[in-house]
């Protein structure tokens, strides 16, 4: 087991507005972790710091022992919370691009998942529905054999049957050397595949426990506890 993410006193502020406040966090390999928090709590800021899209205001972040950069991007597969593909390209052209770009890309697996979800490789991305575009993005990310998968709202726009498929894909892809960090609001759909749960609020980590610890201690599902902790 190795440490894939390490944050030490990590702080990020935007013009004085503190998005992440002095966070300490350690994530080991072989885990599926839920990053849960209300809107504007700092989830996406943390994810962008992990991916090197933002730099810390103070403190440190290490991905598999190095600061985010070229080396970390080779082992991190990132699904952003918005569509990141060129809409004029066909699905197959995008798969070609990914095959060229990422040494760990599993092309066969990618086509298998596309066909399973009924997405033809020859269609242009712009002709796909919003949900189907999201499926393509997620399939591309999960087709990499990465050490760390960072999924920002992976199932928000897809139907419940596809959610089940996505979740079984995550389970099937489980690798003791890799970890998956999932940010989502659809807690009840994902909580039973999670090892650990991180609750984040106003830039602070307010809880970091296993799902079974939460259920044992509170007698509630993670979803129910979330609703209680973050009640307005």
């Amino acid at each position: 087991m190795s440490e894939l993410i390490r944050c030490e006193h990590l702080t990020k502020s935007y013009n004085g507005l503190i998005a992440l406040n002095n966070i300490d966090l350690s994530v080991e390999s072989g885990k599926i972790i839920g990053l849960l928090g209300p809107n504007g709590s700092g989830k996406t800021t943390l994810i962008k710091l992990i991916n090197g899209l933002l730099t810390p205001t103070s403190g440190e972040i290490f991905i598999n022992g190095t600061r985010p950069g070229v080396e970390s991007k080779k082992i991190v597969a990132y699904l952003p919370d918005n569509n990141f593909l060129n809409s004029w390209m066909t699905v197959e052209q995008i798969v070609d691009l990914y095959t060229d770009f990422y040494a760990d890309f599993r092309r066969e697996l990618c086509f298998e998942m596309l066909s399973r979800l009924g997405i033809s490789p020859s269609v242009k991305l712009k002709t796909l529905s919003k949900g189907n575009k999201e499926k393509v993005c997620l399939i591309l990310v999960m087709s990499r054999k990465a050490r760390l998968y960072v999924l920002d709202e992976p199932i928000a726009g897809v139907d419940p049957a596809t959610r089940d498929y996505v979740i079984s894909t995550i389970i099937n892809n489980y690798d003791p050397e890799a970890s998956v960090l999932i940010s989502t609001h659809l807690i009840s759909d994902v909580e039973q595949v999670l090892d650990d749960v991180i609750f984040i609020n106003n830039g602070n980590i307010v809880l970091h426990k296993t799902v079974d610890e939460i259920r044992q201690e509170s007698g509630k599902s993670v979803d129910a506890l979330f609703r209680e902790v973050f009640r307005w």
Partner: protein
Amino acid sequence: MDWKLDKDRPIVPQICEQMSVRIAKGDFAPDEKLMSVREVAVGAGINPNTVQKAFEELERQGMIYSVRGSGWYVGADFTAAKRAVEDLIFFKTDQYFKAMEALGYDLEATKNYIGRWKA
């Protein structure tokens, strides 16, 4: 295999209970190979680490055993599984009587009610 998992309770004991019931019922032959951890995880829609923990707990209780490099097997002796199911039956019965008590039925009244009950 069909799994029914309650969201308010830890998952590990639920997997253990349902496995104990199957073993005690005789769903498996002694020394029969079990499904792999991954198969159970996918089937139940849960984390493979959770299944691993549940299997290790069942091993600790003497119901199943692992063979390095091969997988998990049902033990030849079903005593531990039967004992676990018995505990479960007592627990459920206790829950039932407590629920009846909350409705204002004491033990005798509840037993009387059970006598009149038709499935």
